[in-house]
């Protein structure tokens, strides 16, 4: 009797699932939930982003944002979101990541535009370029994209915790993968070139190797939510608005000056900005999480954050310290005017692990980024004169 009842319930449940699977989901609105101690197995449990039918929906009150220039991640597009518990706010800082309250949940979803006609979960993808690189004011339409992973950064009482979630082949859910993962993909560029590559989802320790601005303390921190990365307009569903102003207006950010008084990085692909501003913005977001006075790569003496001005610190005529084969047979990090002789350009254009830079987060060459850095070096005055 009992068995048959259970069987009946199971049949009903399965039937219901079948119906739901066949139609667009019509479940309760997504609501963010802060897990203070546990790491839920499913991304949707956090309630910040989740697949609802053909829509990657944002949770109630979740705010999307983007960065002026973002880290290159093998041409993946990125949807960034942030959510703060009711009644809390972050404290502004002009240079460092804002100080966020316990309970803050940040997510970053990595995805690719799919090659036209390919099914959900297809490996055949296209690069997210320019403005496509970051999008999703109202989530993402899943019919044209391939989701790969969503990284969650959650601010707990003990500090930030980084959790990688990997999307399933059906693109309906992402599950926690602390050991990381790989996705074998095939990139079709606009000019027709097709490149097979391995997209590497970082493991939790690899998350930490970038998200640790102070290597001595080893405390994790978000990288993007800094004034200089956010200080520009975002096309919210409610209209365009400066992100610092928006976050201030909704009460999530305290202490921010007017946008014009806050630092601002360039968009690396914005050809109306100076090459210097674009290149420094690019190096800032792609390198300075390690290459700073307190970062993982402080041991190299090469510091590339936006505020560095000393030429030697920026690598001008600086001999490498521990580059090994990463020198590419070149003597200096940057030789002004000579990108072909500069280790910096060589390593950005390399794909071999141990040679390429950044160390993590890419297996492909960012051709547009390399072109920018080469143009920047080519235009630098001076020379490395032997003594």
């Amino acid at each position: 009797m009992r068995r048959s009842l259970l069987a009946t319930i199971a049949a009903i449940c399965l039937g219901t699932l079948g119906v739901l699977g066949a139609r667009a989901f019509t479940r309760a609105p997504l609501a963010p939930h802060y897990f203070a101690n546990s790491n839920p197995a499913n991304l949707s449990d956090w309630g910040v982003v989740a697949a609802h039918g053909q829509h990657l929906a944002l949770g109630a009150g979740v705010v999307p944002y983007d960065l002026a220039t973002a880290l290159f991640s093998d041409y993946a597009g990125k949807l960034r979101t942030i959510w703060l518990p009711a009644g809390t706010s972050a404290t502004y800082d002009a240079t460092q990541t804002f100080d966020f309250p316990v309970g803050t949940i940040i997510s970053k979803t990595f995805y690719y535009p799919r090659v036209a006609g390919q099914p959900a979960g297809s490996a055949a993808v296209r690069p997210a370029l320019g403005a496509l690189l970051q999008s999703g004011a109202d989530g993402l339409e899943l019919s044209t994209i391939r989701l790969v992973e969503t990284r969650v950064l959650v601010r707990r009482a003990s500090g930030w915790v980084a959790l990688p979630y990997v999307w399933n082949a059906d693109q309906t859910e992402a599950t926690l993968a602390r050991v990381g993962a790989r996705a074998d993909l095939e990139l079709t560029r606009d000019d027709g070139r097709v490149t097979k590559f391995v997209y590497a989802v970082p493991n939790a320790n690899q998350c930490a190797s970038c998200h640790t601005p102070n290597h001595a303390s080893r405390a994790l921190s978000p990288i993007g939510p800094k004034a200089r990365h956010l200080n520009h307009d975002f096309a919210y569903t409610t209209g365009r608005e400066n992100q610092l102003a928006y976050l201030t207006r909704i009460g999530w950010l305290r202490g921010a000056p007017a946008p014009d008084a806050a630092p601002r990085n360039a968009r690396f692909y914005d050809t109306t900005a100076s090459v210097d501003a674009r290149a420094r913005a690019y190096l800032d977001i792609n390198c300075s999480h390690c290459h700073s006075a307190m970062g993982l790569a402080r041991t190299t003496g090469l510091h590339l954050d936006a505020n560095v001005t000393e030429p030697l610190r920026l690598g001008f005529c600086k001999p490498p310290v521990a580059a090994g084969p990463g020198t590419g047979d070149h003597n200096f990090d940057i030789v002004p005017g000579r990108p072909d002789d500069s280790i910096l350009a060589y390593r950005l254009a390399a794909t071999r692990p141990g040679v390429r830079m950044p160390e993590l987060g890419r297996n492909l060459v960012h051709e547009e980024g390399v072109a920018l850095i080469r143009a920047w070096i080519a235009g630098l005055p001076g020379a490395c004169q032997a003594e």
Partner: protein
Amino acid sequence: MRVTTGCLTGLLASVSLAAMLAGCDKPKQQAAAPADTSGQTVILQKLLDAKPGDVITIPAGVYHLDSSISLNVDGVTVRGEGMDKTVLDFTNQINGSEGFAVHASNFTIEDIALQNSKGDALKVNEGQNIIIRRVRAEWTNGPATSNGAYGLYPVQTKNLLVEDCYVRGASDAGIYVGQSQNIVVRRNHAIENVAGIEIENSSFADIYDNEATKNTGGILVFNMPNLPVPGHSTRVFHNHAYANNTPNFGAKGTAVSSVPAGTGVIVNANKKVEIFDNDIADNATGNVIIASYFSTGFMTKTGVAEAYDPYPEAIYIYGNHFKGGGDAPDTLKLKAAKLALFGLTGHFPDVIWDGFANPKKLVDGKLPADSAICVDNAPSDVLNADGPNDFKGAKVDTAAFACNLEKMAPITLTGPLADTPATSGAAKS
């Protein structure tokens, strides 16, 4: 095509069944040959879940990893079942720079091999009380410029013991201790690296009872510019550095690319270095070379921080047993200098100084007594190579180095490393 999380073994059967099943499907398209990385998943999970005090044991076997592994937790021991039995092989590595990256204090790794990593085999980036013991770091193809840079690479560590390890094939240094303090490196075997053992910008180091052979340079004590701290106070003793004559296969631009093939022990720009009671033999350029940063060829007007001191000072060489060497120096200029001074069948003296001295410190043409280069190693001679004049005035000038410096005290490891035997002083076997 799918995302895989690897084929988990029974140890992790409770984790994400769906992902497991997906992971066991061999991808149809891939940029690199997929290796069986199930062992990697288990090892990585253990490292991620580690708590202070944990001993992570890795059973004997060859584990093929396609990604670097890392540890961020203090107080962990990683232990294999022997450097020839527990082997982490990174031949198929596609992700991460090092083989094993450690950011932790009170860390011990022993009885394990890390081989064929794309970058450094083991990097310990900042930490106190580090023990690296009976670890093999090897590129099994032998010398190649494309090999990873460093075999064992502790940097910015304090209280460090590296002992009984085997390093081979590093395209930079087999054992490279960078920017560290309170260091003992002993009883290691460094073979067929560009630099066998290199101590750089580090202070208070005892390097003894090591064997370094078939490297380009056997043992290096260097100070490089633009780093937070300069190094000083290193004792190199009771080592056997012989036949380090492998052509330099380091990438150009690296500090070690300036080391001439055939170097036994070389000091560059370091201070307070004592080289004694070593057996140094058959190194074809020089058994001992004392050099300045000028001799690296990397000196530029703007590329070196003002605070950097490019000169070697307070170097004390005594009681070494030299044999052979200096007979077939690297580079054309050195060959020419050897030929001119010592003829076809002659050889350089056992100790070569490049001839660069800090003009601001010279008093009557000599360095002050506490900064001097002293060689008390009869019957061996000393060559002043006259580097500033392209070796034109090179000459044997042993008498100019006849002095003595105060001997330095042995290094005492402290804290959790205090119970490791103190400096042996015993004769090398």
